[in-house]
């Protein structure tokens, strides 16, 4: 039976299927729930310095079974309150990755330090929320600021640092290179794609915030392109995501260059049972393809162009 274990930045995960940030990650009980349901790692909601209410509703729009738009606005209880939530998840034995967002390198560093102190195995820096002015997205689109933020956090913590990138850029690997140069231990990609819903009859945007971020199956081709291109330009490991729903989706991300993946929207469409199903499906599929371990697939589609 195929071995689902994977290693990212020296940390070993029981399987490559992580809970994505912002899904089930505001409360410790939910992190624990996703872990108990079979996730290989659980990423917390992105946490800031202060409690943040997020945007008013509507915060969500769904598109049949192929996509979802959200502008939650980074609601989170703030770093003062949050450690107790992580405590619940850690007590349950979960491998927790702590996500943080901030307005500048200093804030990221301070938050990173406090998050690291909760005992998370790694930090994920949200450099990529497409709908929160001044909180990550502007930083995340500028290679210089990416470098500054990552450097500052690296100086402040000893746990591995994962830089989470936006797809809303003409050259995503450029951002990955900046993160790598600054010492990032891994890249995760992608956050949601900038998007919007308008109601024809009401003549207004649907989301209270106006624009939001697209997630789900519709962005899988976008995520794959980003991971592929990042893999060609950096050496540090990649955690891929965007639209994962099936074992083949996972395999495609691995082939593009990811060492692990995150699952977000599928939790809404299917429930947290998605982790168990994906794990089982992945084992069966790897066995059928005679793949012994996840690592054997990482980046394996590179160098095999579709035409001569």
């Amino acid at each position, binding site marked *: 039976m195929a071995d689902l274990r994977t290693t990212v930045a020296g940390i070993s995960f029981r399987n490559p299927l992580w809970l994505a940030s912002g899904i*089930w990650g*505001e409360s410790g009980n939910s992190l624990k729930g996703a872990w108990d349901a079979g996730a290989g790692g659980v990423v917390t909601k992105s946490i800031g310095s202060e*409690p943040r209410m997020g945007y008013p*509703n*509507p915060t969500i729009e769904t598109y049949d079974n192929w996509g979802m738009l959200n502008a939650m606005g980074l*609601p989170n209880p703030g770093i003062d309150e949050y450690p107790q939530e992580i405590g619940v998840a850690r007590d349950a034995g979960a491998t927790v990755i702590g996500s943080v967002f901030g307005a500048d390198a200093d804030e990221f560093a301070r938050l990173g330090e406090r998050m690291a102190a909760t005992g998370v195995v790694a930090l994920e820096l949200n450099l990529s929320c497409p709908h929160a002015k001044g909180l990550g997205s502007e930083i995340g689109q500028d290679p210089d600021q990416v470098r500054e933020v990552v450097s500052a956090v690296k100086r402040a913590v000893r746990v591995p640092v994962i830089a989470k990138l936006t797809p809303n850029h003409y050259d995503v690997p450029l951002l990955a290179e900046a993160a790598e140069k600054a010492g990032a231990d891994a890249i995760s990609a992608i956050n949601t794609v900038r998007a919007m819903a308008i109601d024809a009859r009401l003549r207004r945007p*649907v989301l*209270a915030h106006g624009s939001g971020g697209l997630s789900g199956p519709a962005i899988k081709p976008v995520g794959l392109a980003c991971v592929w291109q990042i893999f060609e330009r950096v050496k540090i490991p990649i955690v891929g995501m965007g639209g994962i729903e099936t074992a083949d989706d996972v395999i495609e991300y691995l082939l593009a260059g990811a060492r692990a993946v995150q699952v977000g929207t599928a*939790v809404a469409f299917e429930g947290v049972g998605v982790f168990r199903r994906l794990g089982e499906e992945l084992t069966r599929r790897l066995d059928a393809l005679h793949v012994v371990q996840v690592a054997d697939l990482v980046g394996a589609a590179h160098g095999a162009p579709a035409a001569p």
Partner: protein
Amino acid sequence: MRTITEVSERIVETPSTVTLRFRYTPAASPGQFVMIWLPGDDELPMSLSYTGEPKGVTIKAMGATTRAALSVQKGDLVGIRGPYGNHFDLTPRRILLVGGGSGTAVLAPAAEAAARAGSTVVAALGATTAAELLFVDRARAFSNRVEVATDDGTQGHHGYVTDVSQRLLREDSFDAVWTCGPEIMMRKVIAASEARHVPVYCSMERQMKCALGMCDACALGPYHVCSDGPVFPAERLTPLPEFGRTKRDSSGRRVPL
């Protein structure tokens, strides 16, 4: 995918409560809720107080948005998505209904359906004052025993609806208790029912954003009220330290109820 639909009827139920009826065709079971968007304003979770066509929600003014909802008029457009969540088990038996305030909104259609399916329903309904009592007439149609309580004694028992339900539990025998209202009220209902070994089902309320079991806004212990609830058997709630004590605000912080 929201459906934009017209409010086809607006019924003032009490000084603080209105029912909005609207065409919304997806099938729904009593206990389920919808997210109702008041364009230009918030989107709120509301139990369906009418699960057949036209569907309906019954809104009590609690804060800014629900107050705004009261001014929605017939012909206005609202956005509906759902229905979401689980529902009451309608197997025929003897059911005691304990509704507090707008909590009666979700119990009424469930009791109606249960009665139609052969259940016997006894209803205890409470409110702050007589004028605020909700769906008493509606309850009389599905139940031949409806007892009311008001905090100020303007109608029925002078005091809490839990005084009434406790008495009913003593006087009569029930297979199940269905309750919705302030959590402190539901805690009391559970305590009294457990003493008599009657299972209790509570319809819970928490902040909601996605209603899809994703965003964690409605986290309640290990559950998401939107997708694991809103109807919970009491034995799932009583072990939770937050039940009747804390909820989470929009930021996810725990705050007192």
